[in-house]
C-alpha cells in the first residue's frame, strides 16, 4: 500500500484520540474507585448494582424500623416491670392479711392498695413520643378512663383502645409489633397486658376488689379468690415480659443479620462496580508508555522526508 504524507498525521491523531480516551477512562476509574458509573459502562453489572443497591436501601430502612421497635419494646418492658412491682406488693398484702388483723390495719392496707391502683392506672396510660403505649391502634387517645365514687376512689376502669397493635416490617414481608394492647376481652388475638380473657387477667378489677375487700374486712374472699386472681394477673404480666424479652432478642438478631446482609450486599456491589485499583494503575502506566512511544516515534518519523537531505 502506498503511504502518503498525511497518513502519518491522520494515523497519529487517531491513535492519540484512542490513547487519550483510554487514559481518561482509567484516570476517572482510579479517581472515583468505580469501574461502573453509567449503565452503558457495563449494562448487565449496572442492572445488578441498581437492584443490589435497592435491597441495601430497604435493609437500611429495616434497620431503622428495628431501632424504633427496640425503643418501644424497651419502653413496654419498663412498663411491665413497674406493673409487676405493683402486683407483687398487692399479692404480698393479699398474702399477709389474715383474720387477726384489726379493721384499722386492714383499712390502711386498703389505702395502700388504692394507691397501687392509682399508680397502675397511671402506668397503663403511659405515653412515649406522644403516643399512648397500651392504646392498641388508638394511640392518640388515653386508653384507660376511670370512674370514681364520692370519696374519689376509682370504682371502675374502662378501656377505649383497640385489642390489636400496629405491625411493621423488620425484613421483607416480616411484620412485627413491639406494642401490647392494654386489654383484650375478645378471647382471641393478641394478649392484653392489663386485662385478657384468655388468661383471666384483669389487674384493675382485681385491685379494686382487693381494696374493697380489705376495706370491708372480707379476708376470706381475699384468700379464696382474689389472691389467685392477682397471681393470674402477675402471670399474665410475666408472660408478656417473657414475650417482650424474646422480641428484643429477635430484634437484636435481626439487626445483626441485617447488618451482615448489608455487608454482603455492599461486597457484591463492590465486586461489580468498584475498580481493581492495582490493575487500573498498571493499565494506566501501560497507556502512558504507549503515549510516550507514540509521541517519540511520531516526532522522529514526521520530521523526516526527502526535504531533510536536499540542498
Amino acid at each position, binding site marked *: 500500500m502506498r503511504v502518503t504524507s*498525511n497518513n502519518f498525521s491522520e494515523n497519529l491523531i487517531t491513535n492519540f484520540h484512542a490513547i487519550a480516551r483510554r487514559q481518561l477512562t482509567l484516570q476517572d476509574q482510579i479517581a472515583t474507585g468505580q469501574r461502573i*458509573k453509567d*449503565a452503558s459502562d457495563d449494562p448487565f453489572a449496572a442492572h445488578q448494582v441498581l437492584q443490589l*443497591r*435497592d435491597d441495601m436501601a430497604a435493609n437500611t430502612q429495616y434497620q431503622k424500623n428495628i431501632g424504633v421497635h427496640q425503643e418501644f419494646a424497651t419502653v413496654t418492658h419498663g412498663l411491665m416491670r413497674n406493673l409487676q412491682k405493683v402486683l407483687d406488693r398487692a399479692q404480698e398484702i393479699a398474702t399477709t392479711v389474715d383474720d387477726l388483723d384489726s379493721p384499722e390495719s386492714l383499712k390502711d392496707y386498703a389505702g395502700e392498695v388504692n394507691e397501687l391502683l392509682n399508680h397502675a392506672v397511671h402506668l397503663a396510660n403511659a405515653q412515649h413520643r406522644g403516643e399512648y403505649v397500651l392504646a392498641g391502634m388508638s394511640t392518640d387517645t388515653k386508653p384507660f378512663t376511670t370512674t370514681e365514687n364520692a370519696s374519689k376512689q376509682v370504682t371502675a376502669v374502662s378501656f377505649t383502645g383497640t385489642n390489636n397493635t400496629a405491625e411493621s416490617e423488620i425484613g421483607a414481608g416480616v411484620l412485627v409489633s413491639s406494642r401490647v394492647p392494654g386489654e383484650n376481652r375478645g378471647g382471641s388475638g393478641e394478649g392484653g397486658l392489663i386485662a385478657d380473657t384468655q388468661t383471666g387477667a384483669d389487674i384493675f378489677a382485681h385491685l379494686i376488689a382487693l381494696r374493697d375487700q380489705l376495706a370491708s374486712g372480707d379476708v376470706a374472699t381475699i384468700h379464696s379468690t382474689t389472691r389467685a386472681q392477682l397471681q393470674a394477673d402477675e402471670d399474665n404480666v410475666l408472660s408478656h415480659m417473657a414475650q417482650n424479652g424474646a422480641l428484643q432478642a429477635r430484634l437484636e438478631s435481626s439487626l445483626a443479620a441485617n447488618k451482615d446482609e448489608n455487608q454482603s450486599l455492599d461486597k457484591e456491589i463492590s465486586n461489580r462496580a468498584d475498580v481493581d485499583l492495582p490493575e487500573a494503575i498498571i493499565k494506566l502506566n501501560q497507556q502512558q508508555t504507549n503515549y510516550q512511544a507514540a509521541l517519540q516515534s511520531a516526532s522522529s518519523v514526521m520530521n523526516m522526508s526527502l526535504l531533510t537531505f536536499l540542498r
Partner: protein
Amino acid sequence: MAGLFDTLNLGSRSLSTYRKAIDVTGHNLANVNTEGYTRQRLQIGTTTTDGGPFGPLGNGSDAVQITRLYSQATAKQLQTEASIQGSLDAKHDALQQALVFLQESIDRNGANGTTTKGLSQGLSDFFAAAQNVATNPGSIEHRQVFLQKAQELATKFNTTDSRLDSLNEGINERISSEVTEANGLLNEIAKLNESIVGEEALSTGFANDLRDTRQLKMEALAKLVKFEAAEQENGAINISVAGNLLVDGREVANSLETFDDSGSLQVRVAGQSAAAGLTGGSIYGSINVRDGELANLRGQVDLLASTFISEVNAVHRTGFSLDNTTGADFFTGTTAGDISVNAALLGNPRLLQASGVAGQAGNNTVAQAIASLSETKHAALNGLSFSGKQAQSIASLGQDVASARSELADQQTISQFVRDQRDSVSGVSIDEEMTNLIMFQNAFQASAKLISMTDEMLATIIEM
C-alpha cells in the same frame, strides 16, 4: 528535413512541458494538507513525428493532459460509509444524552452509600419514608418527611419527562438544521456541476479541482442523507434520494423539507405529501432513534409513572387520615409529566390516610400497604416491581448506548480504512513529489542544455 531551428523548437517545447510538470508538482505540494484534494499528474506524451528516409523522427515531448489519480469505487465507498457513520453518530449522541438525562449514574462515594440521582433513588427514598410512617403512624414529622420524599419523586418524574421532551426538541432542531444544510449542499453541487460542465467543455481535460470540491460536498451530503449519484456524460452528477431526483445536472430539481406528520417532525421531498423513505445519514439516524429507542424509553417512564400513581392511589384511597377523612388520592396526574402529590396532603400531613380504620391514629395498615408496594410485582410492568422496572429500563438504555458506541467504533475503523485506501491512491506524498521535482528539474536542465548546445552549433555555422 528538420533543421537546427527545429531542434531549438524541440528544446523549447520540452522546457515548457517540464515547467508545466513542475507546476503540477508544485500544485500537489501546495495542497498536501487540503481536505479532499486528489493528487494530479501531468501526462507527458511524444509529439507527432516527421517522416523521413530513415524512418519517423521524433519531435520531443508535449503535455497531454492533467489527470487526477483516484478510484471511483473508493469515492463511492466513502459516501456509503459517511452515511452509515452519520446515522450512527446521531443515534449515539441522542442515546448518550438520554442516559445522562436520566441521572442514574452510580455514585459509590457519597455519604449515603451507593446512590444515584434519578428515579431509582427517588423510588427507594419514597418507600423508605413510607416504612417510617408505617413504623410511626401517628408521627406528624414522619408523615411530613414521607410527603416531601413523595414530592421529590414526583419532581424527578417531571424533570425526567421534561428533559426527554427537550431531547426530542433538540433532535427536531438538529433535523431541521441538517435539512437546511443538505439543501445548501444540493445547491452547491448543482453549481459545481455547472462550473465543471462549462470548464470541461472548453478543454480536453478535466476540471480536477472542481471535481475534488464536488466530491467533498457529496461526502458532506452523504453524512446527512444517503443518496444515489449518477455521473452524466457531460461530467455533471445527478443526485437522487429514495428514488427522487434532487439535483438534475446544473439545477436543483427538488429540495428536502421538514413537515409535521401527525405531531412528529418528518422529512420529505418538497411538493410530496409523504415522508421520504430515508435509509441512511444523520437525518435518518435522528428520526430513527427519536421514534425508536427514545419513544420506547419515554413510554417506559410514563408506564412506570402511571402504574405507580394508580397503585399508590388505590391503596391510599381506602385509608383514613388522622382527621378521619378518606377517599383522597395520594398523587394527582396520570403521567410522568404531570404527577404531583395531592396539594391538600402536602399542606396538612394529618390528611395522609395511613390508617385502615377511622379514628385509629396508631393504625398503620394502609401506610404499611403502601410501603409493601415496593416488593409487589406488577402485571402492568411485566411482572416487575417499580424499582425492578426502572433498573431494567436503565440497563436496557445502557445496553443501547453501549451497542451504539461499539457500532460507532467499528464504523470509525471501517471509515478510517476506506480513507486510508483513498489516500493510498489519491493522497500526496511529499517524498514522491520531491523525487518527481528532481526528475522534472533534471529534464528541464537537460532541455536547456540542448537549447544552449543548439545555440552554440548555430553560432559555429554563422561564424563559418
